């Protein structure tokens, strides 16, 4: 009886040790797999929050994270319906400040808007219509100067055709980067 009880005790303590050892090993394994997966292609990349152009955003960052969509929607109604053109919550203002330095765009893999929307799995359709680049980075930037020159010429139509062809080619080349 005694020897049996002792044996059982020994067994359980051994089992405990084995269990503890197993747990330790698996914890290490999980930690290492975490470290491995965060850098792999399989997981959704963490959003990129590059520094904006200005000193600070128009509101606190915590407020903007939660409410930027409401403010944008409100502004959209004011501008579209009433013609109010304040810049504080205009989408153009966001783009001007947050455009990526390399691609000068808020969309794309590392774009300020898209990287976060991809991470949060929220559809981003603003930029199907709205320009994702600041005006300074688009073909419409030097438009005023070009317009004067081109309209002074008589052969306007073919020139314009070429201009606009380059316009359509440009996003494909820059978008790929």
């Amino acid at each position, binding site marked *: 009886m005694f020897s049996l009880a002792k044996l059982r005790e020994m067994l359980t303590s051994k089992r405990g040790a084995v269990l503890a050892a197993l747990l330790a090993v698996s914890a290490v394994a999980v930690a290492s797999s975490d470290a491995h997966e965060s850098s792999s292609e399989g997981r959704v990349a963490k959003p990129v929050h590059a520094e904006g152009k200005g000193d600070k955003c128009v509101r606190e960052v915590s407020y903007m994270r939660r409410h930027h969509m409401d403010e944008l929607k409100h502004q959209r109604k004011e501008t579209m*319906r009433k*013609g109010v053109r*304040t810049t504080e919550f205009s989408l153009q203002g966001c783009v001007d400040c947050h455009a990526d330095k390399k691609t000068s765009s808020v969309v794309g893999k590392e774009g300020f808007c898209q990287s976060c929307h991809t991470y949060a799995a929220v559809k981003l359709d603003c930029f*199907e219509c709205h320009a994702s680049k600041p005006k300074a980075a688009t073909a*419409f930037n030097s438009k005023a100067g070009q*317009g004067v020159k081109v309209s002074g010429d008589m052969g306007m139509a073919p020139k314009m055709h070429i201009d606009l062809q380059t*316009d359509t080619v440009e996003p494909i080349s820059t978008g790929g980067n």
Partner: protein
Amino acid sequence: MDKTPENKSHDSSRRQFVGYGAAMAGLAIAPGVTLFDLAHGRAPEEAASSKVRWGMLIDSGKCATGCDDCVSACGKENGFSGTRETDSQWIRKVEIKDLRSGQSHSLPMMCQHCEHPPCVDVCPTGASFKRADGIVLVDRHICIGCRYCMMACPYKARSFVHEELHDQNPDVPRGKGCVESCTLCVHRVDKGGQPACADACSEAGHNAILFGDLNDPNSEISKRVTTLATTQVRADLGLNVGVRYQGL
């Protein structure tokens, strides 16, 4: 007034309009010229006002046959070339000819920015709307692309965007699946400018397109509308359009 025969109603409304304009012109000599500046230099936070009614007067006598500077300028400003088959057309040149006399006219045709726009009447979602200052627009956030407005418009002024667009003008958001038309370059007008077509026409030295406030008796456009014979295209429809033609 709507119940009276078409011609009579048109005549009387025109007479009334001319009389009203003349009366206003008389009144406005006292307050001075600053009225126009106030109306045009609107602060960004100020909403468009119904005191203003933007309009255009197109002098077909000055509009040169074969010149399409206004059309190209529109495309350049708003981001379409007119070279692709499905490209939008916000403004087009029309040549009209009287077969008996052989007399011909050239003129640009675009959204006429009606006071009573049929496109707004038929829009099932409320996307098509008229702003307080008379500019008829499409709210693309709400447009479902049903194209009823295209059928309703007597001027064939609206286009549907069939293909995905890239690299839009930041001031002119445009995209696939929506109906669109001349916005009277609302983004320029809000900043105190005038439409790209009017700019291009004066740059080319034709000065056939005059843009201004039809409600302001001191504006050049009002003065010309009150003193010269101007025409509304399809005036019989009683839409009271914002784009008038001279010399037709």
